């Protein structure tokens, strides 16, 4: 009998889960209250990064994901994703930060990341400010256009037999004996039969987990991204200052910004991203926008004369330990989490989809071996005093 899987969420992670699960022959239904990629996916920059990750469970997932993005590009066509293997350039503004960056890169290299120290950063990026003591080039860093990528993955899933339904999941239907999932209920009153439910609801993953009886703590972290007027190519790589590496893993409540600057195919330059813990507060913060602009202008002085055309903000979903939660929830058999990717959800999506599929199949899938990614399991949050809420 084919395993029936309901994927909650049609963002890039949900689409990747559907794509891999449907490719593996599972019976897949994707449910979202909105269209594909309309939530956090549409507010991302499309980072597929190894450079910002320290050795550990997330880097292992990122490594696999980088390979799977290439595979997806080959299967779906690189243009359908706007996949660009442009490489990343992390620059240090001082001699001390260059030393720290060098040590960080050496540990990454030991974990299998390709790193290339650069003495003259302006050989790679001619428009960088003078006087930058050096940096590291990460040739594996890449970029996709997030909504196009999510739409392409979902279309491919549908070609493999998956269905996409509009609706909001309101709860789980479980068997009387053992509490195993037998379906999900929608707000419209329908019941979708399911042997497994994948919680790929991104920033809303905490709420969906609660509705399924398997709560996980997923919190929003606000980020602004700036978009400039379209220009001829001026920035070739993803360029960011070494401070970003420190910020990604930070749990500081206040504002942090360290900008990532990169060009896009449309000619615009993206400048991201700030990180603020302000809940789901959607208000504009002009101080954050000004700070990002100032940092970008310090990296690339020519930007001073370039117009900001647009700013947008999104809510990056993060778990308290800043690692995604991917894997089956022992409290409700059949619930598999795939959320909490913070600012790395686009990059980590294919590997998350493959890993979820491997958990569903009970065997490795496309290089994803559940035994190799135990650090992402929800079990890490389930200390004895933590009980599922009723």
């Amino acid at each position, binding site marked *: 009998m084919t395993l029936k899987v309901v994927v909650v969420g049609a963002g890039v992670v949900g689409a990747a889960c559907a794509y891999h699960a449907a490719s593996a022959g599972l019976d897949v239904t994707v449910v979202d209250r909105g*269209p*594909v*990629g*309309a939530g956090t996916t*549409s507010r991302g920059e499309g980072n597929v990064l190894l450079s910002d990750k320290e050795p550990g469970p997330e880097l292992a997932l990122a490594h696999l994901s980088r390979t799977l993005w290439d595979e997806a590009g080959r299967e779906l066509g690189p243009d359908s994703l706007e996949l660009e293997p442009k490489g990343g350039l992390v620059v240090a503004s001082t001699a001390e930060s260059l030393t720290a960056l060098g040590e960080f890169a050496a540990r990454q290299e030991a974990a299998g990341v390709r790193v290339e120290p650069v003495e003259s950063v302006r050989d790679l990026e001619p428009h960088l400010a003078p006087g930058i003591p050096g940096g590291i080039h990460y040739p594996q860093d890449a970029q996709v256009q997030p*909504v*196009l990528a999510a*739409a392409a993955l979902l*279309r491919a899933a549908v070609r493999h037999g998956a269905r*996409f339904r509009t609706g909001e999941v309101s709860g789980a239907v479980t068997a009387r004996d053992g509490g195993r999932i037998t379906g999900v209920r929608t707000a419209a009153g329908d019941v979708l039969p399911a042997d497994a439910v994948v919680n790929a609801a991104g920033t809303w993953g905490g709420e969906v987990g609660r509705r399924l009886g398997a709560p996980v703590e997923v919190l929003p972290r606000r980020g602004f991204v*700036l978009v*400039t*007027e*379209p220009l001829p190519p001026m920035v070739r790589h993803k360029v960011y200052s070494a401070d970003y590496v420190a910020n990604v893993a930070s749990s500081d409540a206040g504002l942090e910004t360290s900008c990532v600057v990169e060009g896009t195919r*449309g000619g*615009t330059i993206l*400048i991201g991203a700030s990180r603020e813990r302000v809940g789901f507060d*959607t*208000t*504009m*913060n*002009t*101080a954050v*926008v*000004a*700070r990002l*602009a*100032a940092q*970008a*202008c310090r990296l690339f002085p020519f*930007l*001073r*004369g*370039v*117009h*900001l*055309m*647009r*700013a*947008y*903000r999104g809510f990056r979903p993060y778990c308290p330990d800043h690692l995604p939660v991917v894997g089956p929830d022992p409290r409700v058999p059949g619930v598999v989490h795939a959320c909490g990717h913070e600012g790395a959800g686009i990059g980590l999506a294919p590997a998350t989809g493959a890993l979820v599929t491997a958990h569903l199949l009970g065997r490795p899938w496309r290089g994803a071996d559940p035994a190799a990614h135990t650090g992402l399991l929800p079990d890490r949050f389930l200390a004895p005093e933590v009980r599922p809420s009723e």
Partner: protein
Amino acid sequence: MNEPADLVVVGAGPAGLAATATALSGGLRVVLVDSGTTVGGQYWRHPPEHARAAIATGDLHHGLRTYRALCRALAAHRAAGRLDLLLGHHAWSAVREGDGFAVHAVDRRDAPRETTVVLRAPRLLVATGAYDRQLPFPGWDLPGVLTAGGLQALLKGGGVAAGSRVALGGTGPFLLPVAAGLAARGVEVVAVCEAAHPRAWLRHPVPLLRNPGKWAEGAGYAATLARHRVPVRPRTAIVAAEGGARVSAVRIASLAPDGSPRPGTERRVEVDAVGVGWGFTPQLDLLVPLGCALTESADGNAVAAVDADQRTTVPGLYTAGETCGVGGAALAVNEGRLAARSVLADSGTDPAPANRPPTALRSAVARQRAFARAMALAHPVPPAWPEWLTDGTVVCRCEEVTAGAVRAARADGAHDHRQVKQLTRAGMGWCQGRMCGPAVHCLTARGRAYEPAERLVATPVTLGALADLDEGPQTPQTPQSPRAAQSPRAAQAQQAPTDNGHTDKECS
């Protein structure tokens, strides 16, 4: 003005001018900011001061007596130090700050140099008006095809006629003054193609009878157009424009009641300029990010929801004029006055007794709103307009996205302009969907009101100016540049009232 302001007004068109004058007469200190180089907005647009004597624009205007009275009132309060008039300032964001508001603007009087200023007050009144609603058609992106409002702005602002043989098209009474203004300057107006039928007005007799002034205005245009033998052709449309380097001809067709071209009626007319307008789209960019609730207007636009006295759903935030529904200048003036009275009441200040009592204002607003509603219902976007488009017709000019691409996105499940944007880039370019947004909406979600995309940056601003905002706190203690070193109010106070030419003289 050295005291803190009680109110910031954004927009110095009819609504903003009227609101400012009423608030000043009630004793408030006001900062009035506008991107233009003179006050008046689009409706009372005038040539630059030094050229006014040479360019006659009197026949293009209505309500100049009101305009001059408002200008005189502003000039007196400015001289008394109670009004900061900041022209050439573009507001790019308005945010809540503490118990009040901060309006972020860039001073572009010394363009291309940009200097950021922050205007703070406990209350904010947004009167940012509207701009032409455009519906694409084959050839609309040719040079020489303008908006009707663009043609009018060239006439009012510089006495410039954009062509010598002009066709006008679209819908709504606004086409008539544009045609009359052009004809009076010797332009051959070959046709005014009005998509609606005048009979549609007869369904709303009460608002018509209660607004006789509008009829008199319309009769004036009709007389001018008859004198110059300008044909006004109801239920026709410019369905295509042709040309090489610029437009050389239009195709005009009769329309069936649903707006589809009647087969066999199409004819080609040679022109050297075209003006098209399908009503207006309110400029809500500053209001939406503040969380102001929207409501549906009869013309298919989402507009700011206001109470009977022009308060938005955000405490301390008021709006007047086209932002709460397109209805023309006379209505905007009354709404501006009403909004300012609410500001005065909410500030605990009694409005000056010389002003019209609010009941009279309210009933005037209600009467004029009813007229605006009748006008909107009589001049809808033709339901079959998308039939005029080929798959190759460009819809988003900035990103060169075609109608075919928009239709493909819709077939892919995109059911509003935001999703189409994500899939096709329509609306991601320089204008950020201000031009193509209503059209993409009509192609994907007709039947619902058009809600513009949220734009956190209301006008492009250089990253350098923003960087200075971060690096240079604008206090006298840490000067960055002569202007930024002071608060904008302090900077303004040091200027003689006439030093930038923006004085009461400009109203003459």
